[in-house]
């Protein structure tokens, strides 16, 4: 695949645009992030093609789509993690609370404190559980005293549903936890800097069903406190945890809408094919 969009596709996407663009803001509730006509290139290769989406505060937004369609790429635009890939280039407009995050005056470090991220594979630092959580607050100077820091660590772990399991062994290494616990530790770590948005890239793909259920439950509880965007391969999961779903295909946004509509009554043929498992 050298060209993401071939001629037949683009004529199709033209007709599609008619119906897809209107539901850019499938959200109600306060807008958190908006994206307009975002393109991403890796070198000469275009990975995202004109994606416009609104992320709202009160809803969990799920990105679904076949492997390689650009979900992770697009997600990483939202906290500028693509900056770490030298060949990646992002164009278009992405705002957080109305502020253009790709503007020259935007401080990337501050942005990432406001838009946290949880990765596919749990990646706790090889430090103690306590230090893992305290990492962010320390570098951002969020706590002025030891008590305050202890407090942040405790509430973050409580919110991530991990406190009861680890309260007696905060000094153990974070890497000694089970995979599911590690992933909740990473969520707690993201929560600890008090972000406004949390991005999750297939947070459960390395976990067993029980650990997955715990994370999903956690996402339910975190909803409303943070704007949450989750990438998932698992359509049941998207249906369970999200209220808004965006379906990506070959770097374009095919359909974006209320999750239950997307799953029961998709407007696009491709979406239907994908969710009924005809391909992907």
């Amino acid at each position, binding site marked *: 695949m050298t060209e993401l969009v071939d001629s037949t596709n683009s004529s199709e996407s033209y007709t599609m645009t008619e119906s897809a663009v209107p539901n850019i803001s499938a959200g109600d509730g306060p807008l958190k992030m908006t994206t307009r006509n975002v393109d991403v290139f890796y070198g000469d290769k275009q990975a995202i093609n004109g994606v416009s989406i609104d992320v709202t505060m009160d809803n969990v937004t799920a990105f679904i789509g076949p492997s390689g369609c650009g979900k992770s790429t697009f997600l990483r635009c939202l906290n500028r993690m693509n900056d770490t890939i030298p060949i990646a280039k992002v164009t278009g407009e992405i705002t957080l609370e109305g502020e253009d995050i790709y503007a020259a005056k935007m401080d990337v470090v501050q942005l990432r404190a406001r838009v946290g991220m949880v990765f596919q594979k749990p990646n706790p630092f*090889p430090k103690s559980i306590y230090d893992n959580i305290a990492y962010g607050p320390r570098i951002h100077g969020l706590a002025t005293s030891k008590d305050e820091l202890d407090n942040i660590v405790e509430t973050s772990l409580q919110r991530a549903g991990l406190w009861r399991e680890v309260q007696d062994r905060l000094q153990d290494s974070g890497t000694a936890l089970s995979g599911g616990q590690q992933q909740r530790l990473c969520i707690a770590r993201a929560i600890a800097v008090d972000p406004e948005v949390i991005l999750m890239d297939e947070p459960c793909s390395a976990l067993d069903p029980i650990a997955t259920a715990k994370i999903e439950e956690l996402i339910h509880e975190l909803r409303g406190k943070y704007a949450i965007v989750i990438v998932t391969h698992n359509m049941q999961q998207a249906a369970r945890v999200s209220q808004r779903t965006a379906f990506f295909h070959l770097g374009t946004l095919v359909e974006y809408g209320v999750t239950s509509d997307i799953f029961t009554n998709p407007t696009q043929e491709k979406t239907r094919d994908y969710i009924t498992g005809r391909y992907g």
Partner: protein
Amino acid sequence: MTGSILFLLIIVLGGIAWFFGRVKATRFSATNPKRGTVHSLPNYHGWYVALWAIGPALLFLVIWNIASPALITDAALASPAAEQLPQGQFARGAILAEARSIASGEQVRAFNPLSQSMVEPYKAAISYYQMIGMVAALLLVFACGVFAWLRIKPELRARTKIERVTMMTLLLASLIATITTVGIFASLIFESARFFSMVSPIDFLFGMEWNPKAVAGPRGETGFGAIPLFWGTVFIGAIIAMIVAIPLGLMSAIYLTQYAPPNFRAWMKPILEVLAGVPTVVYGYFAALTVAPALRDFAVSIGISGASSESALAAGVVMGIMIIPFVSSMADDSIAAVPSAMRDGSLAMGATKSETIKKVLIPAALPGVVGGVLLAVSRAIGETMIVVMAAGLAANMTANPFSSVTTVTTQIVQLLTGDQEFDSPKTLAAFALGLVLFIVTLLLNLIALRVVKKYREAYE
């Protein structure tokens, strides 16, 4: 006929044996075309016969060369001329040795007329035993060759047997390196034991005065207290050199792995590796002729007393520079081995690049870096050329980097060069020093390798 001609002859006979084996095998392969009836290809049968022809004969020649000198001496002593020899062991041995070298053509004229009389019996004995050896070797070639040739038949597993011989040869080659190490260690222990029978190990290991004398002084002091040498070695190799090498090596590794654009890295890494390949004697020049005088002038100009032109600092700094590529490449490997998920995790928390390096990458890479540093220390304390050229000989116990200190390796060189009797304590002390050095570097290497291995496992 000399040994080398005999050797060549055996090899040629082996070639012929190979040919005959192959011919026979080719013949029965042709008559048994069905797959599976002939186990091995004709070539393998050829090699099978050739190895049988050559192997036992060469083995015999090796043993014969070790055993025959004693037999030759016995035969020569049995001759009538031997009756005039003096009875004393020492004089007798000298005469025999002389006669022997004349007989074998290494020496032209005898100093002792008695030796001259022994030359003829020696010559006779040598040619007699040479003849026996040669005939026996050739007989072995034929006997074993024919034996093997008779044994080859379609179902002989020549291929498997050759495989085993190949394996044994490779094993032997690898054993040689191991055995040599063990041998070196054993000889160090042996000579050190002789040294410690003359000088007490306590005096040696804990003595504060290094001033080796051939004979003990009036109060029994021998001047073999090695502490000043150990201190000098540690001061130069483990302190000054590491103060230079660790920060510079680490920082260059961080720059190269984290900040450098790929094409700069592609240039820089080979250059660093060239630095590691510079012969140490060149560093020695550099230390002795450039760095040392400059440092002394500097020390004098700021009024430091006791500045010497052979300063610990000069040797240590240059050694540190020599070690930089070593530390840097070990650190580079360990930092690169930290999963990028770790780095991304930290960046996604809103940490800057340098915060990420300081708080995540370096702590995670630390065990690997420590292992690398230990290996570097072990190299530095065994390093000889730079310190011989730049560190001086005065065994001072001083922490002043501008004054002169001496190291274990310098003193080993010092003790072994020059006219020394081989069993004086002064010479043997070199072995004792070598033993200490060997043990320390061995331990450092073991610890370092273990640390590095554990670290690798942590990120499997």
